[in-house]
């Protein structure tokens, strides 16, 4: 394994952060950021300390149990029942060690909380079981990859540049955790929290770094880090994952441009399709007929819908879709949990119309291209 030189972090951590076999066994891979390696160093320091005390104490106990086992005729001897000097040492010495651990821990913690000034600002929104990351030019990633039991979003980040996420949740508390960076931070509905990291420069000799577009002209190395939700948030808490893809700077800029979506000259349903991914509807609604957390969008437009409270509508129309987006709890389709949070204030009227157009398209009913005049549109 390549030894990762470690510029940051105090001498202790660099000494102990060399990737030993025990650390490999415990952590799987080495941390992918300097702060992460310093935290690993502290963990190993505590580990070796604990092993020492454990072996001493358990060894003594087992030894005493064998040597002083009860044998007929042999009695327990009198021994001193207190020894102030000994008792003081085994109180003060642990305290001193703990003070060292505290300051080392605080050092890594402070570094993880204060982002460097020039960090790039991205806005992360967490909602029940979907992460969405918005880049400065308003772009949200639409690439997804199969991880766990469904496709998860992929977020591209440039290598070797400090990045700060301004995180907010739109329903319950989540927690943004990237195990490779050894940091997590809770995401709250009523205030922003910050999460900053600096991905390492991509090092081709590292086995985890892969090459995209092998052999073609624009091949580039990338390294994936798993994103996990660490604060319990409900049914699909275990599938609220994400992939943080570290790519070279140039590839990152090119990718950002490719993701930008200009609605000019696009059919309403094409804009609707983009919104379907960008607004996170993809997390619960599928477009291939299988039912996810919510009903699938292929069987919505014009269909009969039975609701949980027994009422039903025989032909789904614009008003029903519009109401279900802004106030989902009003009419919950039978057999589905009442889990959808309201998109009040997060989607404009025009977005809703485009999404309705996309649902019509999925149901095979194509309206004419976006002509403002006919409100009804061919049905």
């Amino acid at each position, binding site marked *: 394994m390549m030894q990762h030189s470690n510029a940051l972090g105090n001498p202790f951590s660099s000494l102990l952060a060399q990737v030993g076999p025990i650390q490999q066994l415990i952590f799987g891979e080495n941390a992918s950021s300097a702060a992460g390696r310093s935290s690993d160093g502290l963990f190993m320091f505590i580990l070796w300390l604990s092993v020492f005390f454990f072996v001493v104490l358990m060894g003594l106990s087992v030894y005493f149990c064998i040597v002083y086992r*009860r044998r007929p005729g042999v009695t327990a001897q009198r021994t001193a029942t207190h020894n102030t000097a000994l008792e003081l040492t085994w109180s003060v010495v642990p305290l001193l060690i703990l003070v060292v651990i505290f300051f080392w821990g605080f050092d890594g913690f402070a570094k993880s909380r204060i982002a460097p000034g020039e960090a790039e600002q991205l806005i992360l929104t967490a909602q029940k079981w979907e992460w969405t990351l918005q880049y400065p030019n308003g772009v949200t990633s639409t690439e997804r990859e199969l991880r766990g039991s469904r496709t998860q979003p992929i977020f591209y980040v440039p290598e070797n540049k400090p990045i700060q996420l301004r995180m907010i949740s739109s329903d319950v508390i989540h927690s943004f955790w990237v195990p490779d960076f050894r940091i997590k931070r809770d995401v709250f509905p009523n205030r922003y929290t910050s999460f900053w990291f600096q991905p390492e420069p991509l090092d081709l000799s590292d086995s985890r770094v892969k090459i995209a577009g092998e052999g073609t002209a624009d091949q580039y190395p990338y390294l994936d880090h798993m994103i996990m939700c660490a604060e319990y948030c409900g049914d699909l808490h275990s599938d609220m994952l994400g992939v943080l893809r570290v790519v070279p700077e140039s590839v990152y800029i090119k990718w950002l441009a490719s993701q930008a979506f200009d609605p000019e000259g696009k059919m309403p349903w094409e804009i609707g399709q983009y919104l379907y991914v960008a607004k996170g509807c993809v997390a619960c609604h599928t477009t291939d007929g299988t039912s996810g957390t919510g009903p699938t969008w292929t069987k919505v437009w014009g269909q009969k819908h039975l609701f949980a409270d027994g009422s039903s509508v025989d032909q789904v129309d614009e008003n029903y879709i519009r109401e279900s987006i802004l106030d989902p709890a009003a009419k919950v389709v039978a057999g589905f949990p009442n889990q959808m949070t309201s998109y009040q204030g997060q989607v404009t009227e025009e977005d809703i119309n485009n999404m309705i157009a996309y649902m019509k398209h999925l149901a095979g009913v194509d309206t004419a291209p976006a002509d403002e005049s006919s409100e009804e549109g061919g049905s």
Partner: protein
Amino acid sequence: MATIDTHTSATVEHDHHDEGSYLKPKGSMLITLIDWLSTIDHKKIGVMYLFAVFFMFFLGGVAALAVRIELLEPIRQAADGTITGSNLASLFGLKDYSVAQSGNLYNRFMTLHGAIMVFMFIVPGIPASLGNFFLPLMIGAKDVAFPRLNLLSWYIYLFGSMFGVIAIILGGVDTGWTFYTPYSTTTDADHLNVVLMVLAAFILGFSSIFTGLNFVVTVHKLRAPGMGWFDMPLFVWAIYSTAIIQVLATPVIGITLLLLVFERTFNVGIFDPAMGGDPVLFQHFFWFYSHPVVYVMILPAMGIISETLTIYSRKKIFGYHAIAFSSLAIAAISFLVWGHHLFTSEGTLTATIFSALTFLVAIPTAVKVFNWVATLYKGSIVLNTPMLYTMMFLFTFLIGGLTGLPLGALSTDLHLHDSYYVVAHFHYTMFGGMVVAFLAGIHHWWPKMFGKEYSQLGSKIGFFLVFIGFNVTFFTQFFLGTQGMPRRYASYLSEFQPLHQISTIGSFVLAMGFFVHLFVFIQSLAVGKKAKPNYCGGLTLEWETSSPPIEHNFHHEPMLRHGPYEFADVVPPQCEPGEYPMPDPVENNDH
């Protein structure tokens, strides 16, 4: 040698000799049942608590097995929509469920496991059963200070558990045993079971308060004549400091759960972010109780270990004052450290303060362990089941305590918080600490409580199954946590599957161990041999009465003449001469 001299106390005491043990039925089945259900005898209430707590442990254990079965394989959905790996859903025979519904089912079992184990088993566990039974006996009292209040707290426990069971029958809750808002105030919006489970915890809190209150007054006021504070056994010290925490911490969870019920029913908005409330405030309210209650769980266990370790090594405890004061120190410091459960959600400055204070609480715990190991030096150690469990306690609690250090340090906690490392840590301290010591205490005092011996071989088999099962189950979870497996996940990435499978196998071995113990106890009650009054050569006052003890505990009010652990100087009462040889007397006893 010193013997217990009979003295006629001021008031004339009628003779208790003709009276049978407290277990003697008082007539027909119905009369005995009514007598048991309306008794104010601390021993009967202790036994009733013991069996109720066993039942709750069984319920929690079943939920734990369900959790482990689900985690045998990750949930995957094939392209054509068929779902593989959600074992619980298929076990329950659900048809065409979605991944979300199978996740929800897992969450309900995970919450069930947590809520039952914490509120109905581990908090009342040792104090209500063994504490109720042995505290009065060990300080030479006839009963606890307020016997009727003791019965009332038993019925409040039943009433609270009833609420919990109703919530479970109605479909259980999926909020996690911590009820974090805003999830707990917005989930199952049209169901009542979250309110019922929260009310169950609220009511159980009062049972815990009254038990604690009873014990504090009993220790202050009802000690046998001649028993000063430093003549009391260490189990009494541990129960006393637990009672202080129960009285000082439980009301805060009372008001927290009350506000949560108001939040759910009247939307008072204190914890509701949409109306300006703050979810982290709930976390402060919740953990201000829940960390001290972690010490309510472990302190009685430490008390039992101090008893069994000394009796079965026939050695006076090393550093009696150190252990007694460290019980009180743990009780005091436990109120300062609740913030280390919020490192990822609280402000930077508060997290720093709490991390520093957290390391303070490690000192008294370390002092206790050092003193226990020092006590074993030059003893005469017999490795029967209670002593085996005491050794297992040292093993698991040491691992539990030491693995807590990275959770107390700030930078490592950022990685390990809410991961399986935390699950492994608190199972090593709660299971490896409280349950193991509880088993040590039960095996130590079973013949005294029921007057029947139990088969040593059977219980030793149970011990080995529990030891292997426990360590296999939870030691693997340390590695799951450090490698990035979050807590409370129904499904996981494929690379974690081997460790989860090992852990599940371990949990089955553990369950088998408990069934062996159950069988041994039933066999003991049914056909066990009559137990001797002092079968282990103890010197504390409960060995001066018969086993099972008589209705009023002691024939004559005991007058204490010696400390609880003077094994080298005092002949144990009610034993055949020579059964417990004494070291030759030395002129200058260095007490």
